């Protein structure tokens, strides 16, 4: 039944993306190729990130530096969104969907294919699939924050919260590792914390977005 397990994990990982694509109305705008373009930009950005050399020691400062490089993610998202004409929501959704799908395929498909099909059972594959769901929400929130950051008509009072949210988005991975290391969380607890954190970030960014869009 191991192929079944692989099927379980894949559906858990991929179906939410499908649901999001269908239900957000993107399919009406024929946004499929635009999403693929966004995905290609993701690949390009990852390649650039890989070419940055870092020291071999795995300590806090190195991790911090690595997370700082994730700023390139933001640049990539901005690039995608600037090339797409249309309403703010459309831009955000296209960029986030493409980006998250590319990440899903690149970083999760292979481990699932190789690992979940085997005889040995491990909970980590289900966890990986859940993680991809959380990533989707995370990228939507990140794209929204980037969009807000680059608006010329962003009110002064919003500058600070948006910047903080931006920072949180980028360093979320780093924060997660810190939590796990300090509190010695189990894998399921870490997943829960990650979900809560992403939920909080996305709620805040949604709040700010609604305020911005409907304030003028």
């Amino acid at each position: 039944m191991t192929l079944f397990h692989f099927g379980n994990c894949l559906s858990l990982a991929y179906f939410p993306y499908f649901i999001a694509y269908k239900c957000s109305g993107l399919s009406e705008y024929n946004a499929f190729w635009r999403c693929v373009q966004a995905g290609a930009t993701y690949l390009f950005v990852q390649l650039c990130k890989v070419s940055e050399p870092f020291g071999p020691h795995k300590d806090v400062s190195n991790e911090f530096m690595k997370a700082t490089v994730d700023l390139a993610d933001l640049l990539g998202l901005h690039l995608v969104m600037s090339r797409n004409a249309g309403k703010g929501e459309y831009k955000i959704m296209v960029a986030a969907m493409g980006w998250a799908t590319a990440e899903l395929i690149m970083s999760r498909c292979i481990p699932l294919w190789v690992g979940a099909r085997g005889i040995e059972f491990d909970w980590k594959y289900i966890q990986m699939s859940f993680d991809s769901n959380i990533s989707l929400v995370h990228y939507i929130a990140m794209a929204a924050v980037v969009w807000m950051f680059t608006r010329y008509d962003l009110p002064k009072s919003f500058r600070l919260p948006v910047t903080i949210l931006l920072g949180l988005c980028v360093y979320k991975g780093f924060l997660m590792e810190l939590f796990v290391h300090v509190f010695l969380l189990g894998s399921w607890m870490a997943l829960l914390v990650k979900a809560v954190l992403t939920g909080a970030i996305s709620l805040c960014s949604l709040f700010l977005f609604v305020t911005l869009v409907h304030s003028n």
Partner: protein
Amino acid sequence: MFEEASEVLENMLKWSFPLSLVLFLVLVCPLRAEAAHEFSVYRMQQYDLQGQTYGSRNAILNTEARTVDAEVLSRRCVMVRLIDFSYEKYQKALRQSAGAVVIILPQNMSTVPQDIVQQFMELEPELLATETIVPVYFALEDEELLSIYTQTQISSSSQGSSSAAEVLLHTATANGFQMVTSGAQSKAVSDWAITSLEGRLTGAGGEDLPTIVLVAHYDSFGVAPWLSYGADSNGSGVAILLELARLFSRLYSYKRTHAGYNLLFFLSGGGKFNYQGTKRWLEDNLDHTDSSLLQDNVAFVLCLDTLGNSDNLHLHVSKPPKEGSPQHALLKELETVAAHQHPDLKFSMVHKKINLADDTLAWEHERFGIRRLPAFTLSHLDSHRSPERHSIMDMRPHVDLTKLSRNTKVIAEALARVMYNLTEKGVSGDLQIFTEQMQVQEDQLASLVDWLTAQPRAAQLLDKDSSIVNTLEYHLNRYLKDVRRHLVRADKRDPEFVFYDQLKQTMNAYRVKPAIFDLLLAVCIASYLGVLYLAVQNFGLLYGFLRRVTAPRVKQH
């Protein structure tokens, strides 16, 4: 310009990306799962002797693990610990057509209580006698294996005794284990050569001297070949033989002590398989060559078998020696030396007629007896059926070094008294020859026994290039002349012995969940996706709510 470049790049990526992904997936296809635990297992003996098959016939297994108390054992791998092992449980597993049996032995055998060791030693021949197609493996216990065993035991014993709901919950949390071996099916090894080694010390004083032959078989036997260390049987015999070779070669190097006897030392292989090495050596020497030391004038043949312990010493003969023969002289000298020099030693002669109707011969001297050479075996065991001769429990602690060196001394003294005719010359029984520079070196014996018991010496594992055979040859070369190898290969058409391979395997234990768990998980995932779909559909509600929350604030401006 930047725009154009990015367009080109994007187009490239658009098309090459899916292709490379597909290619990568195809390449990565062969599955290599990591196991929960990987450990070495040693298979039970499998061999044919004189047409009769013994042992377990099968090597591969890919079955789920259970312990003995589980109700359903068929096509499962039954795991038993040595402490819980009994013949009835084994029979029960076989009757229910189990897929395999794995017996877990403690890492340190000395922690096992004596009665369990004794019980297992007696069971070993019975295990081998029941020929079975079920693969039987032995594994050494370590922490992970023990945890696998306890988990399997918990899940095995709870089956069939709880309600459906409990069973359902149990499957979600339980860890089953799938045991898989990586090797192929066992098959007969063709053209296996059993090696025996001989060397000699020529006596002084012309031709036609009488010959004394000293024999010890160097292989070991147990229920699992890779675990047969054979410390006492017959590591002790080999150690004594090499020490005697050293002592007598020393005596022979001085003209004054060069005796008028030829000494022929023989380390035979395949001893535990009905003395194949000795049998063929005798045929070659007596039937196929014109002149050999064995043909002319053999005083007697002394076989050494299991002399590493206990205060008993038995001389096994197939017919009592006649008065005046060299055999009788040795018997008398052994009695004298034992009585005068080692009063704690109890020496006796055991008479057992050769029974040719038996499947296998009892002692090694019977091979010589069949060819009408005067022979006897010296051993501290009183019966050839004693379980210590065929047990994997026979390890280094079974050899007591002081008793071993005492036995060496007794044999050396008795031999010297016969060879130099000391009793007739009136030398008293108290005189010890092997003292000071000529004394039996206990540390030499210790290092020999340690080396011999450091690795398994089953006949199936020692081919002619093995390091043990080479080292033994080297040892003999240091003290003896004319050291020669003698090979025995089974006859092609009617083989006396057939060995099988795949005796050592790597077994993988994979954590598995039962099939119903996957179904359960699918149901859970489907319900989660359903909830998610509803949430996304109604996302507009959240959006509207937030809008209403933020709108009044704007109006207040």
